[in-house]
């Protein structure tokens, strides 16, 4: 589903963010992207969204080299990728319903689909009763669940999450993780960048660790940090 071939990225100001990364992520996988702050996790996700282009190497998504995609095709690429961020990125002046519906309106879905799908996905994330509230009237955990609903409402192939639990308490983190797992079970590939050691350790999923832009570990049933005797 996702393939990096010798990808390097250096920002315009000369900061090297990723160096010679090669890896494969299969369809339906759940992958944790870990590493200290500044190690290149966000850059990794931005490359997948084609918000940035690699300086070297190729990135393939669903078999297609996204670097060769013409600019006008980029929105169509993004429709296959859902995104969740640490800061939620909801539209503050739209209701919960409108925020989620927006993702469908943008890709030209008819009203009937919107009216049918949005309540369904809001029920799934447990916010069926809050659809007319504004984001500012919700807790952080609830806002993040709206963001997950928006990311998933058009059933993307890939879901990217950049520290989605970074602003949440453990209980809310749990419920977001449960949602992401559930989404993953529908066959969606999930890539999640995180700092949350406890989460990663408990989930026992594939862990990719970056250190100053280099891939230093790719472990099938990994934990957050390498501990003595656990390294493969």
């Amino acid at each position: 589903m996702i393939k990096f071939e010798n990808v390097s990225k250096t920002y315009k100001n000369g900061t090297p963010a990723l160096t010679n990364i090669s890896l494969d992520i299969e369809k339906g996988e759940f992958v944790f992207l870990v590493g200290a702050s500044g190690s290149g996790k966000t850059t990794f996700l931005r490359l997948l969204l084609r918000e940035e282009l690699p300086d070297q190497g190729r990135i393939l998504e669903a078999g297609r080299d996204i670097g060769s995609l013409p600019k006008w095709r980029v929105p169509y690429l993004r429709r296959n990728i859902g995104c969740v961020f640490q800061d939620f990125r909801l539209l503050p002046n739209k209701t919960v319903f409108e925020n989620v519906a927006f993702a469908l309106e943008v890709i030209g879905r008819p009203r009937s689909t919107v009216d049918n799908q949005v309540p369904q996905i809001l029920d799934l994330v447990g916010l069926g009763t809050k659809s007319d509230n504004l984001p500012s009237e919700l807790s952080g955990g609830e806002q993040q669940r709206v963001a997950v609903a928006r990311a998933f409402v058009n059933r993307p192939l890939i879901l990217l999450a950049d520290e989605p639990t970074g602003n949440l308490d453990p209980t809310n983190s749990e419920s977001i993780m449960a949602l992401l797992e559930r989404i993953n079970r529908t066959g969606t590939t999930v890539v999640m960048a995180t700092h949350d050691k406890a989460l990663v350790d408990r989930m026992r999923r594939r862990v990719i660790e970056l250190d100053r832009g280099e891939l230093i570990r790719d472990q099938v049933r990994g934990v957050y940090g390498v501990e003595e005797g656990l390294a493969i």
Partner: protein
Amino acid sequence: MRVYLRYAFKETFSNLWRNRMMTIAAVLTVAVSLSLVGGALLLKQSAAQASASWQRGTQVRVWMSSTATPGEVSSVKTQLAQMPIVKSCYYTTQLQDYNEARSTVPIDEFQALKVADMPTSFRCTPTVPTDALTVISTFLHQPGVLTVTAPVQQIREMSHTIRILQVVFLALAGVLLLSASVLILNTIRMAIFTRRREVSVMKLVGATNWFIRVPYITEGFIQGLLGSGVAMLAVWAFHVWYPLHNEFALDAAKVWGTNIVVLVVGAFIGSVGSAVAIRRFLDV
């Protein structure tokens, strides 16, 4: 398409309402700037029209001496008729001149005049007032010609003043238009800057650039229309409450012509301004 039109429509009006302070600011900016532009255009047209009507009225008069022979008179007549710079001429007989003098000359002097003493004359309208000077130099020393008169000094001054006035008003309109464009663009840019977050979210969920752009452009278009609508009222009010007089008075058609220019400019600046202002935020 239907879905999108509905979306764009809804989005345009909810944005106008939601950002109503910005909407008001933009509309007022357009209104004030375009009122001034419209006013300057009106004055420019008024000056042009005054100069035209005044040009039509300028006359040069070739006086024949009372002793001129019929041959000399007809020679002057044919020459005048052949001059391309002379639009029309008519001949004033001694009797007509005598009658004219009755009202222009003091009564005791008039009583001393006899019809036979009166000079005959040609009243001519030159195509352009300054051509009067050529007529003077051509005929002044011809046999039988008493003198040639025209309001020379006024001709020079008026044509000079009016030329300057037109240039000044046109330049004024140009400068005002330029500053209006800058002001309007800036207002729109500020309005969009506060919404760059919204734009980035749209990009994230896969909105195409046109999808994002159109509601902003229609929004700018409507702001431009509203603003120029107010400006049109202002121009009209100026025309009605402070009408210009005599040769400077403009008819309604000219005022509406100016207003149409104001409307088109307002709508154009509003929509193109928005399109330009949003471009920066689309490039992610």
